[in-house]
């Protein structure tokens, strides 16, 4: 692995919601990388789904961190192998209670051209949802809860 590419093992987990300002800061850091022509960003936001008349007010995320970070490292390496032109790839996922309307997930890729950035973000988002052992307890307006399940 090349040192210039940011695919070293990183902790993707952050306590609490992802601040919108974190996105701008991430983007601004890449202004010096003038080989970049395209950034693609995916953000997950907690939705106030309604089921049986009860509204989701927050999701409490927990994870099996050790396994999640191992899976993330593998996904990152496979992503850089499939799209070698990618300049950087940043992933953040929230743990703890995230309220409806707050951000819980960010995948951010940069590349010289748009196609690689677009494809790698779709690939990484889908694989994270399918493979990272992250659990979500949907807390509802009446304080009952229900365990979320990715489909």
């Amino acid at each position: 692995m090349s040192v210039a590419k940011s695919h070293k093992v990183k902790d993707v987990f952050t306590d609490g919601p992802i601040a919108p300002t974190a996105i701008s800061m991430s983007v601004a850091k890449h202004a010096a990388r003038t080989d970049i022509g395209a950034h693609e960003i995916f953000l997950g936001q907690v939705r106030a789904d309604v089921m049986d008349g009860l509204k989701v007010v927050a999701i409490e995320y927990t994870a099996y961190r050790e396994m999640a970070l191992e899976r993330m490292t593998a996904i990152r390496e496979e992503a850089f192998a499939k799209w070698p032109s990618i300049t950087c790839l940043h992933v953040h996922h929230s743990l703890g209670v995230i309220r409806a309307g707050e951000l819980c997930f960010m995948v951010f890729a940069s590349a010289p051209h748009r196609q690689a950035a677009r494809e790698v973000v779709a690939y990484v988002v889908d694989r994270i949802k399918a493979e990272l052992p992250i659990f979500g307890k949907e807390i509802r307006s009446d304080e009952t809860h229900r365990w979320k399940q990715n489909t």
Partner: protein
Amino acid sequence: MRVRLFGLIAEKAGSEFMDAEAPSVEALRARLAERIVGLEALSYAIAVDRVIIRDDAPLTGSEEIAVLPPFAGG
């Protein structure tokens, strides 16, 4: 062996850990079902040393074992 429990299954068990002896993943599933009420109705995977593994895999007792309900990340 000490088994780590997560999410809905930790909630059902009332604990994030459970001690159980089992020579295979299949046997471990049976042990867990005896002790966690309602477990047979749930879908879950077993990870051994942080990799999801088939039910017929043998266990020596020195592995890191985890019981994983459906994922909800993203």
